[in-house]
C-alpha cells in the first residue's frame, strides 16, 4: 500500500512544490505581459526539475542521505556552510511568500484583509507540521491542489484561438514595447519558479522520511515524471488564461485576485471557489515544504536528528528551527511587505542559487561507491551536464538582470 501512497509524494511535491505562489504569480504576470511568448521557459524548468529531483531522489533512496547531508560532504564544511546560508535564506524567503499566498487566498474567500490571515496561516502550517503524519500531509494537500484542474476547464471554455496560442508558444518573440532584458528576466523568473531548490530538499528528504530504498527507484521515477510535468501543465494553463483574458485588454497582473479572474469569467462561482481552494492548497502545501526544508537544510548540515518519522521530542532542534522560521516569516509578513514582490525575489534568487546544490548531487549520483549500479548512466549525465551549463549561466546573469530591469518592472 505504501507504494501507491508514495505516488502522492510526487503529486504533493508537484502541487505544493511546483504550483506554488511563485508559479501562480510568475505565470499570471508573464501571460498577461508576453502571452505565451515565455512558455518555453516553463518547459525548460520542468525538464530541469525532473532531472534534478530524479537524481536527488535516487541518491536519497540508495544512500539514505538527503541533499544537505551530501552538500557538506562533497563541497567540504566551508563551501557547504556558505551554500547552507544562501539556500536557507532563499528557502525562508519562499516560506514568507507562501504564507503571504495562503493569506491572499483566504482573503479572496472572505474579504477579510490578508494581514489578519497571516498569523492564522503561520499557526495552521506549524500545527500540520507538528501533528500530521508525513503521508497524510501529502495526500490532503496534494489531492486538494488537484482542483486546480478547473483552470484547464476554464481555458477550454474560453474557446481561445488554439492555433494562435500554439504559434505564440512555438515562436517566442519579445513583444514591442518590452526590453530584451525584461524578457530575459521574466524567463529566469519562470525558470526559477519551476526549478526551486526547496522542492529538491523536500523531495530527497521525503524519500528518506518514507524510507525509500533501491526497491523504490521506479517509484522515484514515477513520482518525478508524473508530479512535476503535472505542475508544469497547470502553470502553462494559468499563463494561457491570463494571455487570453488580460493581454488583449492591456491589463498587467499584480494581485492574486486577478489570477483567479479568468476562471470566474469562464466557469462562474463554482469555478472561482475551486480555483481559490486550489490556490490555498498549493500555497499551503508549499508552505509545509518550505517550512520543513528550513529545518531539513540546517539539521542535515549539522547532523542533528530531523524529520517527521521520529517523535517531535526526538528531533528537538529540527522542530525548533521550523517553529522559529515560521514565527519570523509571520513577523516579516505582518510588516505588510507586498507578498507578490517577496515572491518575485524568492523565485529569481532561487534560480541564482541552484548550482550550489545541483553540482554536489550530480557528483554523488555518479559515485559508484555510493550508488553501485544505480549511478548515473549516459542519459542522466547528458541532461545533467546540459542543465549544469544552464544553471551556471542563469546564476551568472540573474543578479545583474535584476538590477538592470529593477526586478522586471
Amino acid at each position, binding site marked *: 500500500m505504501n507504494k501507491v501512497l508514495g505516488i502522492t509524494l510526487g503529486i504533493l511535491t508537484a502541487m505544493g512544490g511546483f504550483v506554488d505562489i511563485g508559479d501562480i504569480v510568475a505565470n499570471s504576470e508573464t501571460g498577461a505581459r508576453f502571452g505565451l511568448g515565455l512558455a518555453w521557459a516553463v518547459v525548460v524548468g520542468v525538464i530541469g526539475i525532473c532531472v534534478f529531483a530524479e537524481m536527488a531522489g535516487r541518491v536519497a533512496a540508495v*544512500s*539514505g*542521505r538527503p541533499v544537505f*547531508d551530501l552538500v*557538506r*560532504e562533497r563541497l*567540504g*564544511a*566551508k563551501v*557547504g*556552510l*556558505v551554500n547552507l546560508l544562501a539556500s536557507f535564506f532563499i528557502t525562508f524567503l519562499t516560506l514568507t511568500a507562501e504564507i503571504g499566498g495562503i493569506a491572499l487566498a483566504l482573503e479572496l474567500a472572505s474579504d477579510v484583509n490578508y494581514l489578519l490571515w497571516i498569523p492564522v496561516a503561520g499557526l495552521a502550517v506549524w500545527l500540520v507540521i*507538528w*501533528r*500530521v*503524519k*508525513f503521508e*497524510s*500531509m501529502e495526500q490532503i494537500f496534494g489531492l486538494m491542489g488537484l482542483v486546480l484542474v478547473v483552470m484547464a476547464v476554464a481555458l477550454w471554455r474560453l474557446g481561445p484561438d488554439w492555433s494562435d496560442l500554439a504559434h505564440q508558444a512555438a515562436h517566442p518573440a519579445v513583444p514591442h514595447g518590452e526590453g530584451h532584458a525584461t524578457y530575459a528576466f521574466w524567463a529566469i523568473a519562470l525558470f526559477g519558479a519551476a526549478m526551486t531548490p526547496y522542492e529538491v530538499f523536500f523531495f530527497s528528504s521525503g524519500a528518506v522520511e518514507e524510507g525509500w530504498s533501491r526497491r523504490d527507484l521506479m517509484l522515484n521515477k514515477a513520482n518525478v515524471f508524473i508530479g512535476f510535468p503535472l505542475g508544469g501543465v497547470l502553470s502553462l494553463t494559468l499563463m494561457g488564461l491570463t494571455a487570453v483574458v488580460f493581454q488583449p485588454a492591456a491589463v498587467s497582473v499584480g494581485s492574486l485576485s486577478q489570477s483567479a479572474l479568468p476562471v470566474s469569467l469562464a466557469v462562474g462561482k463554482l469555478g472561482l471557489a475551486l480555483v481559490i481552494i486550489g490556490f490555498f492548497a498549493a500555497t499551503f502545501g508549499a508552505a509545509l515544504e518550505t517550512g520543513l526544508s528550513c529545518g531539513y537544510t540546517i539539521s542535515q548540515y*549539522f*547532523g*542533528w*536528528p*530531523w524529520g*517527521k*518519522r*521520529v*517523535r*517531535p*521530542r*526526538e528531533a*528537538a*532542534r529540527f*522542530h*525548533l528551527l521550523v517553529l522559529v522560521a515560521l514565527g519570523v516569516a509571520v513577523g516579516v509578513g505582518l510588516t505588510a511587505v507586498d507578498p507578490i514582490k517577496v515572491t518575485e525575489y524568492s523565485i529569481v534568487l532561487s534560480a541564482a542559487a541552484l548550482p550550489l546544490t545541483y553540482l554536489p548531487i550530480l557528483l554523488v549520483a555518479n559515485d559508484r*561507491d*555510493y550508488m553501485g549500479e544505480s549511478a548515473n548512466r549516459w542519459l542522466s549525465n547528458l541532461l545533467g551536464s546540459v542543465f549544469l551549463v544552464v544553471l551556471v549561466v542563469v546564476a551568472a546573469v540573474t543578479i545583474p538582470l535584476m538590477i538592470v530591469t529593477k526586478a522586471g518592472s
Partner: protein
Amino acid sequence: MSDPSAPPGRELLLALQLLDRQIVDRHGKLAGKVDDLEISLPSGGGPPVVTALLTGRGALADRLGGRLGRFAAALSRRLVAGDRERPGRVPVSRIADIGNHVTVALDADEMPTYAVEAAVRHGIVEHIPGSGVKGA
C-alpha cells in the same frame, strides 16, 4: 564501502570517507557529524593512528577558521554548557561500522553533541503538547 566487514588492511581516505560523515548511534538515531579526527602517536612507536572522532563542541568551528569559524565558535560556546576546551570525543574503539555513515556502538544521549539537543528538548519542545506522539 564495498564490503563493510572487509578483512583488516582495508584502505580509507579520511577526508573523503570519514570526515563530515553522519554519525548514527546503535539504534539508528542521528547523532551529529564527524567534524574532525584526532590523530595521535602511539606510545609504542609506529605510524600515527586515528584515535577518536571529534564531534560537536566547536570542533567544526575550530576547523572552519577565519571569521566564519570564530563566529561559529562564539555561537557554540554560548549554546553549549559544560567545558568547552575539549571537543566531543568518540574513541575509535566505539566505531561499529564505516559506510555511507559512521555507526557508533553508543546511544545518542551518550554523545557529546547531545547536550544542546537535550537542552532544546527539555527547555522548549517537551513543553508543547503532542511532542511525545508521532503524527496522526
